[in-house]
């Protein structure tokens, strides 16, 4: 009836006919998510955990083959932790700290990431995207078994969308023919080429980078052991391209990423003998390997003007796209889910006005712009666009081998870190003199060990009052929004003190359900708290 656009690694949501298809009238759902990729499923987990009925439609029956994203950053893991699958990702993922940078044939320097102690999750892990999707879907199945109102329908392709202002009507195609679905709210997580974005005539603007990358995932044979490190070559002499990256994944698999220029014959380049020719030149003749997956991709740095259009939201690659340097695609998409989930939940429950949903767009555009800026800068360093920028780039690389100062200027992709929503609408007062910069209002929580537990595990999912050596009531109802207290002490918890008190002696933090700081003070004041909750929920 309809063909797959890509091959599946795991058929985890085979098509089943839904009773909706036999009804004469279209069935109305509170939330429909289009796209069962990582962001669509994460959004479903967020809403499902809140008990909000959600229907996910995907045009395939499972997880596509190909590793695609391999770097999952700390914040993404922390969000996955809240969704109940962060630990599985960590368990399977590869953690690395040592990186080596080469220019032409010479190693110019190496670096150790020297991760900060006292966090449940590392700065990031390497893990093939299909595993991440698998763990997210397994979690979805567990939640369903526990009674969470989540539905996931495979081979349900959305072919048309009608924006009715206060709801949306979808034409869905299935192997049993078409049917209609109505949604109070629609979340488009249908990927980079987002059919929904196109159908709605929304613009997607930015820069297309004229470069292509040949990716090969290879499994090493024999007992030759490559170390668990990240190796990055600028202008490698083993190929005609501008850069090559070697990176370890689980299952003895390595990712090799060749930047091969714009004018390439994709079909020719993807022939196994041609991929092997590049790999052999790069790895040396003695290395034996199996090919796991190859692909050629190009990229763009683009985003939509707004991630909200009435009752329709765009999230993940559908809303924004970045270059692969710095691994920001899936990582930032997870933050979209984290951001949208609680806001939509409050609005659906009638506890916050619809205008709260505009701040989803406001905050995540802020994040997308930061990601686009960072990945554009990396791209400009890796592929200098003018003669003079190449002169400076090579000067940096030359000096990096000789003088330490030049090393921070080497930009082969910056680690994805979450943005701080500085100065945005939902921020309350920052009333903690001497409070640390990194936990200022707008910042995502910073993990810390607290009496044998992780702060991360104590926060999230609702509004909370984190009190550090400060008095406050255990619960407070702010016009229908409950705030519960999480009381901790700096005594015996030096990381907590350093990350949340700074020079202050006590602190009271209002934390949002997505673990961002909404406001902070030195001590509790009911009127101040009420006002901050109202600001943070768009009611002020």
């Amino acid at each position, binding site marked *: 009836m309809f063909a797959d656009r890509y091959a599946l690694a795991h058929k985890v949501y085979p098509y089943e006919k839904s009773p909706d298809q036999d009804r004469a009238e279209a069935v109305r759902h509170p939330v429909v998510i289009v796209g069962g990729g990582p962001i669509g499923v994460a959004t479903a987990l967020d809403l499902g955990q809140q008990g909000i009925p959600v229907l996910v439609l995907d045009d395939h029956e499972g997880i596509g083959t190909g590793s695609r994203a391999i770097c999952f950053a700390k914040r993404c893991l922390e969000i996955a932790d809240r969704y109940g699958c962060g630990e599985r990702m960590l368990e399977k993922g590869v953690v690395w700290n040592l990186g080596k940078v080469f220019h032409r044939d010479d190693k110019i320097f190496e670096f150790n990431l020297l991760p900060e102690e006292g966090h449940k999750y590392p700065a990031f892990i390497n893990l093939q995207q299909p595993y991440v999707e698998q763990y997210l879907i397994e979690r979805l199945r567990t939640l369903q078994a526990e009674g969470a109102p989540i539905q996931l329908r495979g081979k349900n392709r959305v072919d048309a969308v009608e924006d009715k202002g206060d709801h949306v009507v979808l034409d869905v195609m299935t192997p049993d023919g078409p049917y209609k679905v109505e949604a109070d709210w629609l979340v488009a997580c249908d990927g980079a080429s987002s059919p929904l974005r196109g159908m709605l005539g929304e613009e997607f603007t930015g820069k297309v980078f004229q470069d292509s990358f040949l990716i090969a995932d290879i499994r090493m044979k024999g007992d030759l052991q490559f170390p668990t490190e990240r190796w990055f070559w600028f202008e490698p002499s083993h190929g005609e391209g501008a850069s090559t990256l070697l990176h370890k994944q689980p299952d003895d698999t390595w990712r090799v990423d060749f930047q091969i220029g714009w004018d390439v014959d994709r079909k020719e380049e993807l022939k196994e003998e041609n991929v092997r020719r590049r790999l052999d030149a790069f790895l040396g003749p003695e290395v034996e390997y199996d090919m796991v997956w190859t692909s050629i991709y190009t990229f763009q740095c683009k985003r939509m003007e707004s991630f909200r259009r009435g009752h329709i939201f765009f999230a993940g690659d559908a809303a924004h796209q970045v270059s692969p340097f710095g691994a920001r695609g899936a990582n930032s998409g997870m933050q979209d889910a984290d951001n949208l989930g609680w806001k939509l939940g409050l609005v659906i429950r009638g506890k916050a006005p619809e205008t709260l949903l505009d701040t989803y767009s406001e905050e995540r555009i802020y994040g997308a712009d930061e990601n686009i800026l960072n990945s554009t800068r990396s791209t400009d360093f890796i592929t200098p666009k003018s003669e003079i920028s190449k002169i400076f780039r*090579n000067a940096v690389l030359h000096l990096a081998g000789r003088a330490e100062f030049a090393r921070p200027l080497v930009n082969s992709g910056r680690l994805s870190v979450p943005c701080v929503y500085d100065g945005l609408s939902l921020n309350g007062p920052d009333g903690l003199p001497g409070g640390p910069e990194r936990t200022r209002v707008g910042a995502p929580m910073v993990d810390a060990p607290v009496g044998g537990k992780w702060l991360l595990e104590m926060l999230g999912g609702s509004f909370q009052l984190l009190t550090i050596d400060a008095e406050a009531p255990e619960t407070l109802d702010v016009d229908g929004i409950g705030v519960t207290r999480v009381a901790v002490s700096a005594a015996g918890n030096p990381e907590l003190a350093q990350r949340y008190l700074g020079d202050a002696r006590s602190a009271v933090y209002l934390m949002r359900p997505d673990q961002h700081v909404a406001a902070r003070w030195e001590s509790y004041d009911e009127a101040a708290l009420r006002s901050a909750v109202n600001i943070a929920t768009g009611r002020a």
Partner: protein
Amino acid sequence: MSKLNVAPNIAKPDDFYARLLAVHEGRSKEESDAINARLVLILSNHIGDAAVLDEALALAADG
């Protein structure tokens, strides 16, 4: 906030100027460009102060 020092600060200007040119002597245009770029980076790092660097960039760009 520090200010860019635009007052004369090099003790023996003619000596310095000669040494600057000597570094480029016998070099190709490509080598000279590379040396200049490295020099800019080295001196910029030495200064470090963002406000001073911005002032210097503005003064240099003011053609």
